[in-house]
């Protein structure tokens, strides 16, 4: 019986799955297109400021009947940047 108790309620699965499906239905944006948008965004922002490309996340979230594109782009701090530059002593 334990496996039954461990299972998530099916209504929760329905809601979570619908949240994702509705985002794609409403925006007409496929996961592949979202990835390509993310790559373009990283490239553009990197021209101006140093970021950590592996830590960038981009998502479409529901906000009532409208959708919101939310990007989280961590910046590399100046101190760390210096430290990473070759030929210079760290610190």
């Amino acid at each position: 019986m334990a496996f039954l108790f461990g299972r998530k309620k099916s209504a929760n699965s329905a809601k979570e799955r619908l949240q994702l499906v509705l985002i794609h239905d409403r925006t007409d944006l496929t996961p592949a297109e979202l990835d390509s948008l993310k790559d373009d965004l990283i490239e553009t922002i990197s021209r101006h400021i140093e970021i950590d490309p592996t830590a960038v996340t981009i998502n479409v979230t529901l906000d009532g009947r409208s959708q919101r594109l939310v990007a989280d782009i961590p910046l590399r701090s100046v101190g760390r940047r210096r430290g990473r530059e070759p030929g210079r002593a760290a610190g």
Partner: protein
Amino acid sequence: MTAKVVTVASGKGGVGKTTSVANIAVALASRGQKVTCIDGDIGLRNLDVILGLENRIVYDLVDVIEGRCRLRQAMIRDKRLPELYLIPAAQTRDKTAVSPSDMVRLCDELRQEVDWIIIDSPAGIERGFKNAIAAADRVVVMTNPEVSAVRDADRVIGLLDAEEKGPAALVINRLDPVMVKRGDMLSVEDVLDLLAVELIGIVPEDENVIVASNRGQPLALDGKSKAGQAFQNIARRLMGEQVPFMDLDSQNLFQRLLGRK
């Protein structure tokens, strides 16, 4: 007299549009309103059998539009209520026999005669749906607490916004409070979170709906069943009344006393 035109749509088939149109129309008529309902599902008419008026059809919607009869001749009067009429769909034609502007013209003529025009949209989002919403002042979107019905309702709500027919009013049909409590059915709150529209009705799952359709006597004719009451409440809300949503848990009191969860 200037009628309000209300279209009931859903995207997905089988969620209860026709049953709702019949019951909302009956409920409005039982409140002294003059109501005409129009079956917009050309080729697959059903509102006539749900209302129990299938043996009285002489002319249909397409006959009116193509000028073979006058509007009045196609309006079948339901004798159980003072002022309830049905304009049936044509059964041997398809949706291309009617255009959105035909529907606007027909409803403009009808608006002078009644208080309410309730249009039953066919499933889908193509021509039949476009015809059904063309003249609408308000669109009621029906859904069930199931993934496919909610997804299709969202598409319809989006299309209504795009056609400037929004904001839609939502009816959640066939809600089973026991399943919701168990966590095996989307709750009203879940559906509203997802669709983010105004709620105008919650209709509980009720086997009386099938019994009523077997007999051709819509539930709202006698307001005893839960579903019948829910449709009466929707009619009152359409009329502008503030009506609290029913406490659906109370119907499980008996089950609770028996110790069921």
